């Protein structure tokens, strides 16, 4: 079903001098979905976006859209013929046009004022149409950039760190608005981010990128709770790694037993996120729990992070709701209460 892919990248390579920015990148993006390219800075995710947009030529590999080859051996469609919209990190608005002018430019010659209005209303900027783009706040500039990219009704829209220049207080709100607008238009989107929370909360699919290639692709839930490797696990959030042994049907570790879904044998690592550790003062009746001592506590308001020392001397972190409060010195029982992942030892 190649034709159903809005974007399909196969074995992309791109080097700048000796630096391999993109190194064997393959990804398929289904029509109408939103994909996040998540990775640390310098991992090649922005270069990948620029390859898809057509601002850079891949050294090798192919890019196709809806069955049409955009870039490949002896084939290169220039950016203006790709029907791909781009929202830049610094928005790249045209300083010589006002807000309406920026959108009108995108609509092309002969675009009526009415159509410009419609597009601006779509992003809630109808009232600032005559303003110069320098006079807008960061959030408004971002919406102009979005309106401009959406105006020609592209098949795919690319967003480079779209929320990184916004205040933290504004970010969550704008994120929801943008996702709402993209959904309403039914447009396929690919956005680049280094913010795990942003990728997990906005995208349908998260592609975790490291050193120019994809480490894992999956739903937000999959990449978060069943990371493919320790690097992905660590990049997506805090993680505890416990040594364990895989046997017939079960994996056992210091915190108890888990089902052996991977059919592993011998030495394994058990990966568990702090919020998957439950604690109580007494032994729960229905499951095995191990004794531990609260060593330290950090309070974050909606939750608290506890450092627990197990009898073996190993410390693990547990994230619990803010109340009831635990205190250093409390003796507790701890057990795994939530998803945990088991990986073969490297």
């Amino acid at each position, binding site marked *: 079903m190649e034709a159903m892919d809005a974007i399909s990248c196969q074995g992309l390579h791109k080097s700048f001098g000796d630096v391999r920015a993109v190194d064997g990148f393959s990804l398929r993006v289904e029509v109408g979905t939103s994909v996040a390219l998540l990775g640390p800075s310098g991992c090649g995710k922005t270069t990948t976006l620029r390859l898809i947009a057509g601002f850079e030529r891949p050294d090798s590999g192919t890019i196709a859209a809806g069955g049409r080859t955009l870039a490949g051996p002896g084939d290169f469609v*220039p*950016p203006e013929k790709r029907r791909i919209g781009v929202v*830049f990190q610094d928005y*790249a608005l045209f300083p010589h046009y006002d807000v309406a002018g920026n959108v009108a430019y995108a609509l092309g010659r002969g675009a009526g004022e009415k159509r410009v209005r419609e597009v601006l209303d779509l992003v809630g900027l109808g009232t600032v149409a005559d303003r110069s783009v320098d006079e807008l706040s*960061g959030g408004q500039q971002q919406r102009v950039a979005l309106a*401009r990219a959406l105006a020609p009704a592209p098949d795919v829209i690319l967003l480079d760190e779209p929320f990184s*220049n916004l205040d933290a207080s504004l970010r969550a709100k704008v994120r929801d608005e943008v996702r709402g607008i993209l959904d309403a238009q039914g447009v396929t989107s690919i956005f680049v981010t280094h913010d795990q929370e942003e990728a997990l909360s906005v995208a349908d699919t998260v592609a975790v990128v490291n050193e120019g290639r994809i480490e894992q692709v999956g739903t937000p839930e999959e990449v978060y709770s069943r990371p493919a490797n320790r690097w992905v696990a660590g990049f997506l959030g805090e993680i505890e790694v416990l040594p364990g042994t895989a046997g017939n049907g079960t994996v056992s570790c210091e915190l108890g037993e888990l089902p052996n879904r991977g059919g592993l044998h011998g030495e394994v690592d058990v990966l568990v996120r702090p919020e998957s550790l439950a604690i109580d003062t007494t032994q729960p009746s229905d499951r095995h729990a191990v004794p531990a001592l609260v060593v330290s506590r950090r309070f974050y308001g909606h939750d608290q992070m506890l450092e627990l020392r197990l009898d073996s001397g190993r410390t693990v972190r547990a994230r619990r709701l803010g109340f009831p409060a635990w205190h250093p010195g409390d003796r507790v029982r701890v057990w795994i209460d939530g998803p945990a992942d088991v990986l073969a030892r490297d």
Partner: protein
Amino acid sequence: MTAATIAIAVPLAWLTVRTDLPGRRLWTVATALPLVIPSYIGAYALLSALGPSGLAQDLLEPLGVGRLPSIAGFAGAWLTLTLFTYPFVLLPVRAALKRLDPQLEEAALGMGRSRADVFRTVVLPQLVPAIGAGALLVVLYVLSDFGAVSIMRFESFTTAIYTLYRASFDRIGAASLAMLLAALMLVVLWLESRTRRSGALYRSAPGAARRPRPVPLGRWRLPALAFCASISTLALLVPVAVLVYWSLQSVAGEVPWGDIAAATGHSLLVSGLAALLAGLCAMPIAVLAVRFRGPFSALVERLSYTGHALPGIVVALALVFFGTRVAVGLYQTLAMLVFAFVVLFLPLAVGVTRAALLQVSPRVEEAARSLGRSPFAVLRTVTAPLISSGAVAGAALVFLTAVKELPATLILAPIGFETLATEIWKATSVGFFERGAVPSLVLLAISALPLYLLTARD
């Protein structure tokens, strides 16, 4: 000489851009104005004001001052060229100062550095490209200057070439000296290109740009004012006062109004054509040099600079040979003179346009590409409008420079085609100070308009 211009220009730029100096706007214009005074008018004014048997002498004689030391020769040439070339450094530094992101300085102040420290460690390094660009223009200008050194009777390359060519018609001697001078300037250019860094200066942080708060001068206010005033007095007030004085003297006698009117028309025509052509040519060259880096574009940019590296007199001589041997029909025509001006001053226009383009983020052009515009359409609808103010400023600068150009005009102008510059030189080189005064004032008045365009843009 170059060091002296930097020592004058950098403090002036800072005072007029970043401080609460009283009358900042006035000083902004006044300190840039010496740019319109051609070196030969400046030299003639300083010589007739401060030299022996000059105006200052007349004023001081009753006070018992016998005879002022002669300022002709090296000292006079040095003083004149410093006073009338420092705006070449001042203007780019001022522009660069305006572009600096004040947050960088605030960050450094926040680290507990003093103002002076911050200026030295944060501001100055960011100004280096602008200072370098200005200093390059000064060096090239001084090496190729003909007017000031000939009036100050300071023997230099250019005067030697002219004397050889005109007095003894020794073309071979003139040509070999010209070659030597050209080689010297190419060495300067080569050294400069070795030290130049890539100059991307656009601010990447989005949101509304903030204006820096002016630095309060406090007790430094008076010295600062005195500094601005003394530079302006020497570089602007003295020359103009001298010109007005001589004009009044000459009004009593005969002023050849008809000749002056004809010369004015000629000056406007030639310089206007050259400015227009240079402005038009500058845009594609700047785009090529900045956006399509490669051996070819580097060569085109270097070639356009060579024109400026070559002194007017050298280019003029080259075109004389070209005109008498190859393009006989063009020799001593207006077209040849305009062409010489374009060759000479195109780099000015390219420099300013290039600076404007460096401030345009390539992302903006990419955005236009992704909106369905071909590369050419992007150039036309995005790049060109964004750098047109730079190209206009470049053309204004070319006009300003062309209108006062002397040696190439002397050599290449059609017979009987006098411009203001040649009128002035003819009068002053033989000591008729009165006759040079009126055309000089006309020339200054003409130059004021493009200069106003240049400074009002800030």
